[in-house]
């Protein structure tokens, strides 16, 4: 036999594509610029658009009067092929960012792209290899990147915080921040604050002790770590069994990006469920700081105050979703939070004092929260092997997907899910990397609906609702054009009148929405972009659509140029 033919060396897959390999340099994004993000609505500089989490844009080229003319400007296909980590629960959940004419977006399976936001052209791509056997409760997903200091930051599925060069996508640094053998993973979009990058843990269904971490944005060196379950002797430890091991597997993970108040220098982090989710017998007490908002000093990582939405949770009612910051007419600094437990909370964000609480869903059977905040559990998995049905189900009246606030209408637009579930307590021992639920759970297959609820957070009054056959499992965005854009599980992307809730426009994207739309402007033209791709924890929030069409397209809409 002759010598082997020289096959050479393996090359990057992207070199066999039309990817340009480079994005234009943008102006630097730093702390000062992100603080002023509202003043440059042409960009979407940070996860929520602004630190306050309002998901509101002052752009007004697309209005109630012309939105019916909205058409796709381009479509970007993420390209879901081959074996994924957690292929069964793939979903495109991200929030795109736009900086000075460059879009940055992450996808499932460790992918990040820089895209020309006018044409959809792929400028560069990065793919972090994701171990196929990572413990994941809720899919092979990523909710977005942070952009600043010339870099793009992503928290990978296997809990590495990585920094990429914003112009080339080449890796600059890589810091391992979580223990995949302990069931940790990463899915949240990082947040840039000052000269740091902040990101939180995932793994509440595997008994991970939750934490939020801050890193030097230039080097990746950790500045601080804040655990959201206290050790014995620390404040809050009295809410856990004194001599038990429960705190070690306590949960309270931080898998959604916090909001931030630069004046108070406080991060407002929502925390996840206690572990095990449904078996409270092994963790008597309130279990701080699970299911809470914790106000964390951005300089030290210390918890300044907390408010717990569901003490001693027995229903998987994470409170990780956003804490939206707004000010009352009298100047009082407030925070709004629509919890999984079906109640809407308004809190004084300077001290954690409850201002108002009211239900925002139709069906609540798990318990009751009085106007002064007293929590009374009523129905919960208690007796071993006995099924218990409750509303809202474990995905909540609202899951992680985000509401928006329009300061002109004074309304908050909540994507609401009406789905119940049955849980049957089944005690099990804890083992690292094995799901630690303490119950068998089946979410209702056919009794479900949803709506967008426009609520006045100052009174609790619902001004209007837009009803839909299916629960709302995606974020919305509101604009100064008097519009609210909302994606549905059945694929429609709709524009609603912010004053009345009337549907003014829709486009069928071909796959359900479980992501966060944004709006931006380039060269005087306003765009609305939304990733589509049904999946994620569908068995938790809408199992009735487990068989719905998958997808992986980022749609970008605009008014016709002529």
């Amino acid at each position, binding site marked *: 036999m002759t010598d082997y033919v020289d*096959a050479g060396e393996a090359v*990057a897959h992207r070199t066999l594509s039309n990817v340009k390999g480079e994005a234009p340099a943008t102006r630097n994004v730093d702390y000062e610029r992100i603080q002023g993000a509202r003043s440059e609505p042409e960009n979407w500089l940070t996860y929520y658009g602004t630190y306050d989490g309002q998901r509101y844009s002052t752009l007004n080229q697309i209005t109630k009067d012309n939105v019916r003319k909205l058409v796709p400007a381009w479509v970007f296909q993420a390209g879901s092929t081959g*074996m994924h980590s957690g292929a069964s629960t793939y979903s495109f959940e991200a929030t795109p960012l736009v900086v000075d004419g460059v879009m940055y977006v992450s996808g499932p399976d460790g992918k990040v792209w820089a895209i020309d936001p006018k044409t959809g052209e792929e400028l560069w791509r990065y793919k972090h*290899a994701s171990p196929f056997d990572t413990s994941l409760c809720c899919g092979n997903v990523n909710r977005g990147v942070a952009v600043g200091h010339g870099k793009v930051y992503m928290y990978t599925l296997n809990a590495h915080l990585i920094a990429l060069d914003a112009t080339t996508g080449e890796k600059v640094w890589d810091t*391992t921040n979580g223990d995949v053998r302990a069931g940790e993973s990463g899915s949240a979009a990082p947040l840039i604050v000052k000269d740091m990058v902040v990101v939180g843990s995932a793994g509440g269904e595997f008994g991970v002790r939750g934490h939020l971490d801050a890193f030097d944005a230039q080097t990746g060196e950790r500045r601080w770590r804040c655990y959201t379950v206290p050790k014995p002797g620390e404040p809050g430890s009295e809410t856990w069994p004194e001599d038990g091991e429960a705190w070690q597997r306590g949960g309270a993970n931080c898998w959604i990006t916090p909001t931030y108040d630069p004046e108070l220098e406080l991060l407002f982090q929502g925390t996840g469920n206690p572990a095990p989710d449904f078996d409270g017998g092994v963790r008597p007490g309130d279990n701080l700081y699970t299911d809470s908002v914790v106000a964390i000093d951005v300089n030290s990582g210390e918890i300044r105050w907390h408010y717990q939405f569901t003490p001693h949770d027995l229903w998987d009612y994470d409170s990780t979703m956003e804490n939206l910051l707004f000010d009352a007419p009298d100047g009082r600094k407030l925070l709004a939070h629509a919890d999984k437990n079906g109640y809407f909370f308004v809190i004084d964000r300077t001290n954690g004092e409850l201002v108002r609480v009211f239900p925002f869903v139709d069906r609540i059977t798990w318990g009751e929260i009085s106007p002064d905040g007293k929590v009374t559990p009523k129905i919960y998995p208690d007796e071993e092997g006995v099924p218990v049905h409750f509303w809202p189900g474990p995905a909540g009246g609202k899951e992680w997907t985000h509401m928006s606030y329009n300061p002109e209408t004074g309304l908050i637009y909540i994507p609401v899910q009406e789905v119940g579930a049955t849980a049957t307590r089944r005690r099990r021992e804890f*083992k690292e990397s094995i799901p630690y639920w303490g119950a068998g759970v089946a979410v209702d297959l056919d009794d479900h609906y949803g709506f967008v609820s426009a609520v006045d957070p100052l009174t609790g009054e619902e001004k209007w609702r837009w009803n839909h056959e299916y629960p709302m499992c995606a974020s919305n965005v509101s604009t100064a054009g008097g519009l609210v854009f909302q994606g549905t599980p059945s694929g429609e992307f709709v524009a609603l009148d912010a004053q009345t809730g009337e549907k003014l426009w829709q486009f069928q994207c071909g796959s359900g929405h479980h992501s966060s739309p944004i709006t931006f402007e380039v060269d005087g033209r306003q765009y609305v972009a939304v990733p589509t791709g049904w999946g994620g924890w569908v068995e938790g929030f809408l199992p009735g659509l487990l068989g719905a069409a998958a997808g992986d397209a980022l749609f970008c809409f605009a008014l016709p140029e002529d």
Partner: protein
Amino acid sequence: MTATADDRADELHAAGLDGQNRTTLGRMLGTGNVGYAEEGEDGVMRATVRIPEDQLIFDPSIIVFPHGGDIELTLINDDKNTHCALLPHNGDPKIIWLVNHSKGTARLNLDGPGAYWYGSTTGNDEGRGLTAALVMGGEVPDSAKLDRPAQPRP
């Protein structure tokens, strides 16, 4: 029904699952050999994988690395057909085209611990048997571990 664990290779062979066009059409995934990479003084972990004639399998089909890091994989196609390998790598997957009787190299970087699949993405090589695994052992750095006492594992 009977099942076996101790003599799995014999059982797979007897069941006609470890070759081409026997009980089923291709070779069942995950039925090949296990190999181990060697770590050089330069810290690079090296291993060789071959595609034997008419077997449509990467041999070994599971390569175990002691920990995450830099890998140098030598790929040899001893088959009389053309194949390729699309391999995981931090940054972007890498691809190498392997014509009949050819030899090449892939330099990869992968995190550990965890398992990664790769395959020959031409025709339906992957479904016939040319899907294999790179398995990274080890632990994450102490700085990434949770502050808690050691916990039980399965």
